[in-house]
């Protein structure tokens, strides 16, 4: 597989350019020669090995000397021997306990340091059993040890890198176990030795040819800008195709965005929005729509009843009387009515709104003529919840009032919806049935993707409805089944998904 130079990290680039084919590549070397931190170096090795640019040649076991806390204190304060020597030189002869006390050392440490120095003839014990100086300077071994603790403080010392002399001395003050009492701890480490592969060599040549050095500028910072240090330098070029990290953003729910789109569409067609409460009376939910009170569609199993208060206090007049008469004998609507005795108690029974047409009916008493109205209303049905039935759902409904509206303008309106809202290619009208409209029309459309389906129902409000609610002109009433289109728009096939509580699913959901 070809490697894009842009996918190389600056650490890899610099390393590749630095080494030659056949050379041994080790952490120590790179740390030393390229001034990498050990971690950076290991990272670069792992990346390059992953890309088959370098390969493992062998593993060496290496002995390391790590400075202990004691060693660190020797570095700061000096070795006991050194300190004793200085004390004696400055203050004159002292007894061993005196030395221990002034330097804050343990007696045995003083003893062992004295032992060493007296062996090399630097210190000696006088007749008063006091320690006195026998030479002007410390032995060379102390200088070597001081040098070792100093170097050992930045990084562990590798045995392979120590001189013969240094090795001799460091061994004397190091321990493998119980190292707390020694300045150095001895440990062993495996060192991997790499060499450049053929692929690595090829890449190296490419890098040299391209002039990419790994010293290019990374992120542009305010500092680089304020100092102008970018001048004359190259910028590291990024792999623009590498996948970006994910971002969480504030966002509309795509289903609601779709409903908003439908609303805006209807507004643009001259419709004014209406809205209403979730709790309705049987009066508005059914009676006002001229559904006989004891119609099978109104049996208890189709609507949700409110437990308490079970009945509204009153129903708006004169509409109650007018609707009641329309049911009984037609009132002044020209109808013979249903011919039964209207139940004034039942009509106040409270339900959860089961159809959007309720809002159309409630709009009639205050509607302008000519006027166009619509609403997207949350409705509730007593249904088993499944992929095609929700406990609550939206219905899109509306009305058009006007002296001149008629069947043909209704068909025109439906055609406009079919084209504008559903993107339909063909429209077909078939007679329909709704208790509150006569004539009633269903509009079927041929959708580019879904084929033929019923887009909605419509009709001209029965005079028993419109006249009883104070309107003397014809009223076109329509409802659109937009959920099906919404599902398609969202790439879903289950109505329950529209109201999912799952955050991730909503985050990932997109509308077309």
């Amino acid at each position: 597989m070809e490697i894009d130079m842009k996918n190389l990290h600056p650490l890899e680039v610099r390393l590749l350019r630095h080494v030659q084919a056949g050379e041994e590549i080790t952490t120590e070397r790179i740390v030393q020669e390229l001034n990498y931190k050990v971690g950076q170096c290991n990272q670069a090795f792992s990346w390059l090995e992953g890309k088959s640019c370098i390969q493992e040649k062998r593993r060496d076991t290496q002995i390391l000397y790590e400075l202990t806390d004691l060693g660190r204190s020797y570095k700061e304060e000096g070795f006991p021997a050194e300190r004793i020597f200085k004390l004696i030189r400055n203050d004159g002869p002292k007894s061993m306990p005196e030395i221990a006390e002034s330097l804050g050392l343990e007696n045995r440490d003083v003893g062992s340091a004295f032992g060493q120095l007296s062996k090399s003839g630097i210190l000696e014990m006088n007749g008063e059993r006091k320690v006195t100086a026998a030479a002007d300077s410390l032995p060379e071994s102390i200088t070597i040890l001081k040098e070792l603790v100093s170097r050992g403080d930045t990084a562990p010392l590798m045995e392979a890198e120590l001189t013969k002399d240094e090795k001799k001395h460091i061994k004397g003050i190091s321990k493998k176990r119980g190292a707390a009492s020694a300045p150095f701890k001895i440990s062993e480490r495996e060192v991997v030795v790499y060499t450049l592969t053929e692929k690595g060599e090829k890449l190296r040549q490419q890098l040299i040819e391209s002039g990419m050095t790994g010293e290019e500028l990374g992120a542009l910072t305010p500092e680089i800008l304020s100092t102008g240090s970018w001048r004359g330098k190259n910028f590291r070029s990024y792999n623009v195709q590498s996948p970006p990290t994910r971002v969480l953003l504030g966002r509309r729910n795509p289903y609601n965005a779709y409903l908003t789109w439908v609303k805006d569409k209807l507004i643009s067609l001259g419709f004014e929005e209406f809205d209403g409460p979730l709790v309705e009376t049987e009066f508005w939910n059914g009676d006002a729509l001229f559904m006989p009170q004891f119609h099978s569609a109104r049996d208890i199993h189709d609507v949700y009843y409110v437990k308490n208060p079970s009945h509204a206090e009153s129903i708006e007049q004169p509409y109650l009387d007018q609707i009641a008469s329309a049911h009984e004998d037609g009132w002044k609507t020209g109808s013979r009515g249903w011919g039964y005795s209207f139940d004034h108690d039942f009509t106040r029974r409270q339900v959860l709104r089961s159809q959007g047409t309720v809002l159309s009916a409630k709009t009639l008493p205050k509607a302008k003529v000519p006027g166009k109205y619509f609403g997207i209303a949350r409705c509730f049905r007593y249904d088993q919840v499944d992929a095609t039935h929700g406990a609550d759902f939206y219905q899109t409904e509306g009305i058009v009032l006007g002296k001149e509206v008629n069947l043909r303008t209704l068909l025109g309106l439906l055609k406009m919806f079919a084209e504008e809202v559903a993107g339909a290619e063909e429209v077909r009208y078939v007679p329909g049935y709704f208790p509150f409209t006569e004539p009633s029309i269903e509009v079927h459309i041929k959708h580019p993707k879904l084929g033929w389906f019923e887009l909605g129902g419509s009709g001209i409000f029965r005079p028993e409805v419109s006249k009883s609610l104070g309107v003397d002109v014809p009223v076109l009433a329509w409802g659109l089944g937009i959920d099906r289109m919404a599902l398609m728009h969202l790439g879903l096939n289950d109505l329950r998904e529209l109201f999912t509580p799952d955050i991730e699913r909503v985050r990932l959901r997109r509308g077309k």
Partner: protein
Amino acid sequence: MPKIEAAADSFFEFLGKSYSEEELETVFPVAKAELDGWDRDEGIIKIELNDTNRPDLWSTAGLARQLRTYKGGDAPLYDFFSNAEETFDSDKRVVQVHENIQKTRPYIVGFSIAGKPVDEATLKDLIQTQEKLCWNFGRKRKSIAMGVYRSDLIEFPVQYFGADPDAYRFVPLQMEEELSLREIIEKHPKGREFGPIVANDALFPFITDNRGKVLSFPPVINSAEIGAVQVGDEHLFIELTGTELKDLLLTASIVACDLADAGFTIEPVKIEYPFDTEFGQEITVPYYFQEPAKAELKHVSRLLGEHIDGEAAVQALKRMGIYSIVDDEAVYITVPEYRNDFLHAVDIVEDIMIGRGMENHEPIMPNTFTLGRLTPEEEFSRKVKDIMIGLGYQEMMYNYLGSKKDYIDKMRSTGEGIVQIANPMSENYEFVRNSIMPALLESESVSGNAVYPHEIFEIGKVAFLEPSENSGTATRNYLGFMAADSDMGFNQLNSHVSAVLFYMQRDYKLKESVDPRFIPGRAAEVFCGGKRAGVFGEIHPEVLENWGIQMPTAICELDLDIIMQCD
């Protein structure tokens, strides 16, 4: 919507010719019917009927009759209907109604058929028609129940009366032994299904012949003897009992016309009532009771949006199987015996519309200028949504119904002021939400695996009890938003609340809240224009635990209607 199954052979015989599937699809809309399927192996066509006011279409014969006339056939003339002026001779076929049934199930109608043995298709169709009519039109036998009997076993006059449920016994269909009427409603499957219609009455409806041999216990079950009709029977007696006389007469007419179309002779039966009915004390059935109906041609033209003259109206109605005449700029129709759905002139207009063919009505674009406008609440919500999205919140949409567990128990709430459903389908949908908070917490509880932070919101409706309202309830537009993350708390949410109200240009005050849903001392009530407009804070760990949430969560809920008004 009723669905029927028609035997293809008999359906096409009624239609006078065979139709392809495509032809059926084209013609069915005339009867507001839809082709549901066609089982070629069984020869069964499945059809859905959409007009609940046209029960005459819910049978093979009835649907075929409508389609046949639309295709140019003549509407049949039925010569066996008595009416207010003319009564046919019912011979010995009389049903006597007793006074003691008036309060329970006062009406019975009936007729007999003869002329040829009943074949299997007719019997099947008759049973189906009975089921559909009694279920959909007769409100599950409450207002109409129908029984069919072997007429040869009956000695007229038949008696219809209220019977003591413990004293009267007979062997019902599907059983071997005699049961009392009360035992039937307790033990028989049909008794358990339909018994409740009469169970609370002192006397149960009962039909016997003149010797006391049992016909049936309507609306529940027939006797196993007289009521067990079989293929090959030549004489049948059909009765219908119920509470609405006109509906019963109409249903009897529908069944009689269907059977006449199938080639049977209809024999009238006289019903003798001891009390007055709207058609007198003696009614000979089938009985034509419909009043003539009319529509002004001007009215027809106005609603259809084009000029319709008398001839055009008459022709269109003829295709619908309706005879009519034109007089003085109005069309007068003779309502067919099997229909009673002409309440208003608009009902005639619809038949003219269909009779003319839907393809002959040309759409025109509405051209009246009206102003489109959103509700002020919607406009306000849209502005708030923009701010929430700017704050980084994902919009959610939730169901408005939920359970006691979610809305009350998990929320450390008493449930005061919540709207409860009297007839819940399941305990999962028993309450209307009075807060968006449970939905937000449900989201958090199911989204533990989604990358944090979680910042979500919804603007939607809630409802709660409000005694000052006529309905005793109020519906409001609420904003709810929730933030959940390892370092989420009161302060972050406070900043967000402040941003929303700053950009909506509303002054507000905060007051420490003691709402048990929040951690004490880390929740505030929001006041706008002196009214309590909402609450926010850190959700109480006990609530989080109830929802199985293991992430600090803070929620704010604001009443947008109040905030909108306090401008």
